[in-house]
């Protein structure tokens, strides 16, 4: 499971207070936001001229990350058995491979083979590859392909769970990524146009967007988007949802706003599991184990009915995903 980030130091009484105010209807969040409201963030793209695409995102709590995308031409591994059918059609099938996208995350105070960076990288890569269009676009011809290296630097120590920050930074850097235009014949060894202005975007407007991974917390029946460390400390369950914008073709056909595409869901081990048990007075004999407690760490999983509500809250038109994706699209434009 996800190795939890640094723990917040809250007493059982404080945990109980936060938990109670968040389970009210409507919930009262410590920072006064509404349940589906996101915290403000600062973002910029194309900050590093020697990368194919780059972005920097700062959250309001001071955490900051920089991502750079580099693409290199690589020789594809020959698959003799697979190529026979392609030659007959004339139209070659452009199939990418998962190994063409490589991601590495650097977190201060962690070695790059520690559990946290490796787990986060695996999770973000999983969401990226769930959209198979990306790797197919890296295909140049039968012998060559682009290899995409995504390097993310987390500049601040991981105060809260850094997944959304890293995911938004990756999203923006991929949106700003351009690949040099091919000027040679498709079958030849690739030769590229050296004019950067004619480079083609990795995610053209006609395609979907790169995914963003959002954290959603449930507390009782309440669903909270973009939880703060204090809210994570009392969470019943934490979900990481990877979503991408709806395909433009669908957007035109359908009536009204289409819903965002859900690419991956993961449950995370909430840090609330590690909070200490708090008793008001000494444990009374014969009482059920969870009464008379000021605070008991949440146990158990997530109900299916609640899970479907969580997904709806994020994916539905006008939901959390649409808000985030629209905001990020505004940064690049």
């Amino acid at each position, binding site marked *: 499971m996800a190795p939890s980030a640094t723990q917040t130091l809250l007493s059982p009484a404080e945990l109980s207070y936060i938990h109670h105010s968040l389970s009210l209807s409507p919930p009262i969040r410590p920072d006064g936001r509404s349940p589906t409201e996101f915290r403000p963030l600062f973002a910029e793209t194309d900050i590093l001229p020697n990368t194919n695409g780059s972005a920097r995102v700062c959250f309001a709590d001071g955490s900051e990350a920089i991502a750079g995308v*580099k693409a290199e031409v690589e020789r594809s591994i020959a698959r003799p058995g697979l190529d026979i059918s392609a030659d007959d059609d004339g139209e070659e099938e452009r199939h990418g491979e998962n190994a063409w996208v490589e991601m590495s995350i650097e977190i*201060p105070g962690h070695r790059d083979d520690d559990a946290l960076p490796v787990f986060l990288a695996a999770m973000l890569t999983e969401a990226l590859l769930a959209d198979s269009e990306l790797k197919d676009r890296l295909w140049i011809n039968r012998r060559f392909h682009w290899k995409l290296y995504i390097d993310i630097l987390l500049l601040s120590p991981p105060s809260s769970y850094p997944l959304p920050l890293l995911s938004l930074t990756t999203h923006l850097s991929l949106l700003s990524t351009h690949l040099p235009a091919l000027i040679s014949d498709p079958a030849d060894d690739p030769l590229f146009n050296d004019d950067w202005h004619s480079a083609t975007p990795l995610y053209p407007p006609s395609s979907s967007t790169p995914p963003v991974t959002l954290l959603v917390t449930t507390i009782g029946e309440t669903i909270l988007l973009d939880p703060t460390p204090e809210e994570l400390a009392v969470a019943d369950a934490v979900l990481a949802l990877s979503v991408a914008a709806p395909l433009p073709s669908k957007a035109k056909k359908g009536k009204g706003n289409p819903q965002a595409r859900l690419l991956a869901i993961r449950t995370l081990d909430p840090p609330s599991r590690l909070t200490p048990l708090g008793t008001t007075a000494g444990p009374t004999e014969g009482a059920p184990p969870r009464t008379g407690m000021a605070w008991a760490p949440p146990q158990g999983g997530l109900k299916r009915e609640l899970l479907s509500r969580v997904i709806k809250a994020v994916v539905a038109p006008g939901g959390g995903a649409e808000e985030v994706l629209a905001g990020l699209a505004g940064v690049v434009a």
Partner: protein
Amino acid sequence: MPLDTSSYSLALLRLDGRRWNELRRIHAQISTQPSADGSSYLEMGNTKVICIVSGPAEGKRGAGAGGGGERDQSNIVVEISVAGFSGVDRKRRRNDRRTTELQHTITQALQATVYTSHYGGSTITISLHVLAQDGALLAACINAATLALIDAGVPMSDYLVACTAGSTTHASASAPQKPVGQQASIPGLSSLSGGGNFEDTDDPLLDLNGLEEQELPFLTVATLGGERDAVVVCLLETRVHAARVEEMLAVGVDGCKRVREILDGVVRVHGRRMVEGG
């Protein structure tokens, strides 16, 4: 190899159009990260470095040199992380020896500059993130660290500033033909006054970019600004004739003075903004 020397001796202009004594553009910001104790962002030409200082804070017990002998001194820890996308080709750099050596050099230089005795037993952590490399890596790291330490309010004896200086070489010239004293006082002119004899002229160059660094011998020099010009760091990793070093060092120290003025300007602008902003 003759990339630089071929054109330089004709027009006395370098690859990027600078003269021998011109610095690249230096752009710096401090307090870039509100959540850190001290932070800075520095660009020297196309080299870009972010520096974040945390501390002085209580160090971890038993962490390295934080043992009994260091009670009256603070411990300076420098971490350099070179981003995979910083170079021309994407390279994954784990903690290799070159980075370790740079870290050691910066630690030593700062220990001589920071009043470490003010923070006995504490640790000052300086993390440097290299976002783009185009020469003068060590110099940019030192300058960024100085700015971030100033932002963190750590007392130092003066600005520790650094820049690089190199020397043009000719493939044929293994040793300078002229005695050093006779070298023209304006180095660029020596090749013109040589009366067509271009073979024996080597000029010092200030602040090499990445391409020049690959071709020419260069040294990195860091000085404590101010009147004394005390040289704190001098790192020379390439082969160069001993007679060239003095010249290169003089140009480097002179460049440090100008870097100091620029950094001082950045700090003053920031200070004024803080006072006005309340």
